[in-house]
């Protein structure tokens, strides 16, 4: 196991290095707005342009720029400075991370609590009205895009503009809010985003759970469990769900990793100052250091959670040994 983890961590470093090269190449080699001109403003003197170019290190060759950047990242966890406001990228990301993490984890709790039970009920009532209703709703929830669902729900339910104003603070986010310091304000403003973000995930997980469990319930060992005289409840909830939930852990890790890198649509619609929002704004302003930083952080979360998934899997499935 230790050997497996070491190998995977090393592999993770290699993967991140490759991603950083691609990332750097896409954003600095491909044409975008010239960051120097963005900074220098209109009708800047050639001297000013030259100074800024030197300041940003853009006069050096591309490989050199990359190496300087990576040196900062690796040695000092320094992702450079925003072209826009001179704030350190690291600081920006750390400031935005709590909002994104709260959004992602809260939504995850919602979609697990909703999706898994619905999937179980659908599986044991396969083909009956409960199943048809649940899977019909799931299809709707999967089909509804987050930005549409978000805007509609804001219009319907937000305290300020909603037709049925029941969600206080939806659409705004408490300044400097963290779930620890201002729990009520944060939960209030995140309730609606949690539900909206969780909707499609809950639907996907419900369908996934239904499929897994239906398959598992046809397994020989389920027949054995019934032949032992276990109650049907125990057969399904202990023997069936135990097997059916294992693959869910895999996609859960992936989904969470992706969301921790920023839920761009949800954060934008609900005005949540998270990493996704940060990236979105930075792309619009060609703020390359921020974009690079958010992409690297996103990649890190996805890869790290993948590793966690593999480790957890070995505990869930005793047949898996590394």
């Amino acid at each position, binding site marked *: 196991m230790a050997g497996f983890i070491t190998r995977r961590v090393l592999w993770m470093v290699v993967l991140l290095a490759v991603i950083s090269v691609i990332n750097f190449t896409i954003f600095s080699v491909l044409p975008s707005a010239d960051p120097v001109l963005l900074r220098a403003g209109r009708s800047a003197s050639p001297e000013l342009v030259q100074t800024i170019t030197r300041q940003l290190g853009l006069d050096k060759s591309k490989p050199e720029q990359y190496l300087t950047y990576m040196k900062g990242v690796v040695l000092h966890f320094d992702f450079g400075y925003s072209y826009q406001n001179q704030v350190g990228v690291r600081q920006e990301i750390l400031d935005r991370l709590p909002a994104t993490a709260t959004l992602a984890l809260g939504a995850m709790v919602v979609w697990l609590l909703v999706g898994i039970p619905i999937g179980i009920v659908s599986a044991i009532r396969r083909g009956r009205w409960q199943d048809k209703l649940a899977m019909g709703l799931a299809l709707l929830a999967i089909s509804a895009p987050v930005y549409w669902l978000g805007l509609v729900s804001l219009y319907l339910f937000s305290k300020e503009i909603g037709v049925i104003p029941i969600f206080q603070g939806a659409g705004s986010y408490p300044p400097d809010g963290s779930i620890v310091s201002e729990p009520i304000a944060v939960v209030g403003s995140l309730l609606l985003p949690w539900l909206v973000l969780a909707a499609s995930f809950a639907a996907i997980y419900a369908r996934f759970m239904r499929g897994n469990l239906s398959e598992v319930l046809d397994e020989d060992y389920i027949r*054995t469990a019934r032949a032992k*005289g276990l109650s*049907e409840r125990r057969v399904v909830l202990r*023997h069936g769900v*135990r097997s059916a939930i294992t693959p869910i852990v895999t996609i859960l890790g992936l989904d969470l990793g992706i969301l921790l890198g920023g839920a761009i649509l949800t954060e934008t619609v609900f005005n949540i100052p998270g990493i996704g929002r940060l990236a979105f704004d930075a792309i619009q302003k060609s703020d390359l250091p921020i974009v690079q930083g958010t992409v690297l952080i996103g990649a890190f979360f996805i890869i790290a959670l993948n590793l966690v998934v593999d480790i957890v899997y070995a505990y869930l499935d005793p*047949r898996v040994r590394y």
Partner: protein
Amino acid sequence: MALLEVSGLTVSFDTEDGVVQAVDDVSYTVDAGCALGIVGESGSGKSVSSLSVMGLTRFAGNARISGEVRFDGHDLLAAGDEELRRLRGNEIAMIFQDPLSSLHPFFRVGDQLVEAVRAHRDVSRARALDRAVEMLGLVGIPEPRRCASCYPHEFSGGMRQRVMIAMGLINEPKLLIADEPTTALDVTVQAQILELLARLQRELDTAIVLITHDLGVVAEVTDDVAVMYAGRIVEQAPTERLFARPQHPYTWGLLQSIPRVDHRRDEPLVPIPGRPPSLILRPSGCAFHPRCPYVQEHHKRIVPPLEPLAGDPAHSVACLLAEEQRRELWSRLRAGATPDEARAAVGVPGQGAPVLREGLEAG
């Protein structure tokens, strides 16, 4: 007094392709402590009939079951789910064909046995585990205490079947249904498992229903045999009498397709021509007629009833041939004649080997 009394059991499944008549009017009894073998090819309904006894076909959702199954004073087909649950694993246990997939891969073997105990007895985990270890020892698992904390994938197929047997017998049921318990195992392991079943049956005085496609297996373990074909019992007798005086052409086919040590090595085995019939479109008349070398015209119209032999009420057969004809045919077959030679010698008219007439002549 019979422990298990199945009468007129009929099971069918509604499927997209039509109604599958898996079991048709099957009756048999098993006395306490006795062993019954149910023999037949795949798809002859032998497994479904026993799953129905356990109430396990109820979970299929599309099964239609009629007839009567009485077990130790309970009416199993009319019993509620909870009443059946109390019987399952406690009074009636079942072990299955494929031990590799019959144990839950994520739970420790000991825990799975403990669960079987605690489903029916209000005992502590520790007591249940002691019982589990005792049973594992009884079925011949070395180091049972240590093995109880192993996962199924750490065991071989034979070991897993032993675990299944331990699980089946852990509550000392009155009846054990073993559905092809040795089919998925190596031949040497098969013998061990059969020996184990026979020994446990004697020691624990459990009645056994042994379902198999292998008459050799039946010969070693059971007191009585029922031969099933296309969902019906075609011959039923005490084991030794079935082997001594088999009556049904299908039984002859089964017997002649077993290799025997007392025969010459170059003597060919005689396979039964054709394939098992479809249970959706069953052949008219005697269901075996498309494969029977001795078929007569009226066999294709009349369904033969299962009737006791004139001289032996314990031995029943469902065949339209006359009893003397059958006796003559079998003695010729046993002497080494081919079915065609036997038919000619006995003077049964017919069209010869029926391989080419395999197509379904459904009524």
